[in-house]
């Protein structure tokens, strides 16, 4: 579904991506991990078009996308969340969510004046979906609150809710569980899995929480200093010496995966 070939990106003297290649299979949940500064977020930003690549190719459903504008890439069906959850401050949670569905009739000036009934009908449909999603992420009671008043974790949930409404084929999640309370993380994991199982979505996620990675990912890609150092199932990665070396720089493997015992 997504194929990244030999991607390079540097910022001044820092080589953030130094020839990264990987594939994301349709219907899979792929984890992208690595120590801080290993290039995970840069990789996301290049795929979604927010950073221009230095060289390399990106294919999405067979189509080259590395030279497209971010909004064009989004329209092709790649949705993303941001590491620091973006939330328009002076828009309520509801407004934030109503913004999300793509290709809305009411986004054209002409339609605003000449297709009111269709816009109304569309909005009613969106509202129905929004109610169920709001309950899933437990933001229902905060629906009329300005997004600027939400906590960091709640903003994460809001961006997840937004992406669900945006309904892309491929979802890029940048640290979806960072700052979210532990009980809700379980619900989120279930929700992400269901997205794949019931709605056939493909998911690529950056995550530091190893419990999440090993519980839901089919495949894990490990980056270090802009280079892919390993790829495989969570179990294979756990036993990969190179990964442990890069990741733990000394601490034990058990510490990294200590929460994994239940899975």
């Amino acid at each position, binding site marked *: 579904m997504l194929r990244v070939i030999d991607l390079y990106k540097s910022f001044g003297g820092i080589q953030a991506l130094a020839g990264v290649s990987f594939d994301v299979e349709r219907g899979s949940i792929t984890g992208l991990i690595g120590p801080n500064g290993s290039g995970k977020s840069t990789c996301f930003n290049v795929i*979604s*078009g*927010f950073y221009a690549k230095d060289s390399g190719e990106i294919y999405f459903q067979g189509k080259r996308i590395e030279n497209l*504008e*971010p*909004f064009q890439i*989004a*329209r092709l069906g790649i*949705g*993303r*969340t*941001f590491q620091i959850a*973006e*939330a*328009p*401050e*002076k*828009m*309520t949670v*509801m*407004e*934030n969510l*109503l*913004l*999300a569905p*793509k*290709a*809305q*009739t*009411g*986004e*054209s*000036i002409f339609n*605003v*004046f000449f297709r*009111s009934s269709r*816009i*109304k009908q569309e*909005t*009613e449909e969106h*509202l*129905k979906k929004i*109610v169920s999603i709001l*309950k899933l992420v437990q933001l*229902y009671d905060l*629906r*009329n609150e*300005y997004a600027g008043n939400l906590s960091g974790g709640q903003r994460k949930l809001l961006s997840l809710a*937004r992406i669900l409404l*945006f309904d892309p084929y491929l979802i890029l999640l940048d640290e979806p569980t960072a700052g979210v309370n532990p009980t809700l993380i379980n619900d989120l994991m279930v929700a992400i899995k269901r997205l794949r199982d019931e709605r056939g979505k493909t998911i690529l996620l950056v995550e530091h929480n190893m419990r999440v990675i090993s519980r839901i990912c089919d495949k894990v890609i490990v980056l270090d200093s802009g280079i892919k150092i390993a790829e495989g199932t969570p179990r294979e990665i756990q036993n990969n010496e190179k990964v442990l070396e890069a990741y733990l720089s000394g601490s034990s493997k058990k510490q990294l995966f200590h929460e994994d015992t239940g899975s």
Partner: protein
Amino acid sequence: MGFFNFLIYLAIMMGIYGILSLSLNLQYGFTGLANFGQVGFFCLGAYITTIITLAFGMPFILGLFGSMAIAGLFGYIIAIPTADLREDYWAIVTLASAEIVRMFFLNEDWVVGGGVYRGGAFGVGGIPQPFKSHFSAQAYPFFYFAIVLVCLLAAYLIINKLTRSPFGRVLKSIREGEDRLAQAMGKDVKGFRLKTMAVGGMFGGLAGCLWAHYYGFISPNQFLPLETFIVWAMVIVGGKGNNRGSVFGAVIIIIFYHSTRYLKDYIPIEEVTLASLRMVAIGILIVIVMLFMKEGIIKEKKPIYSMVPNSDHVKGNRPL
């Protein structure tokens, strides 16, 4: 009688500036586009309608639509190279573009229509007042006020409908500095900025057209950057992001701006000095409003969605 005529004059000014302030509110209040060149659209509208009606002898209605079309196009064009700029750079570019418009009409002294229209520094007089012959001199200002009121109402309804629509929702998300978010949701942020500048420009042009036909005389030095500042004061004092607030702001600022004319009877200060003090008065008003009502006199409205849990039933006071 003099005072009464003055009131009608004030009402017409409130209407015209109300349109300007609604237009700036769409650009700045809702979309976050710091347009410091609002007077450019005003100037363009005034000149275009003058050329159409005076030089070419066309009817008022053509002048009105012509000035809206050209000013809207101008807004679209200046936004093309600048749409990706940050807010502060936007302010500089738009300020300059308004000056370009003024300089253009200051220096292009063409003679059109057999000498009726003569551009340049001395200005153009004799701009026809629409349907003047149908009314007595006393009744005409009331009729003109009615035209202005209809235009203001149209501007309000159109802009209000836009800002409450899904289109307006995207504008708000752009305003919040969330280009990235809007882009990630597949919104063509640049396209939205261009459209907003075009719509705002259109109404700026409309205000200019109404102004030219009311005064009957225009000259480049009526369109100095100071006018832009006055419109900004209206939006900020009235409450940005609220269309009613913008109109209300226009009313308040126009009252302040012209109050000095009658204050001379009550305060022992010379009229000339008082006239200079009016900008000080507006400045003080802005400071007071900013201190005690940060978001302006009428705050931006928060749409409330009241939904009953576990049901699809949705009601409440909310936009589309």
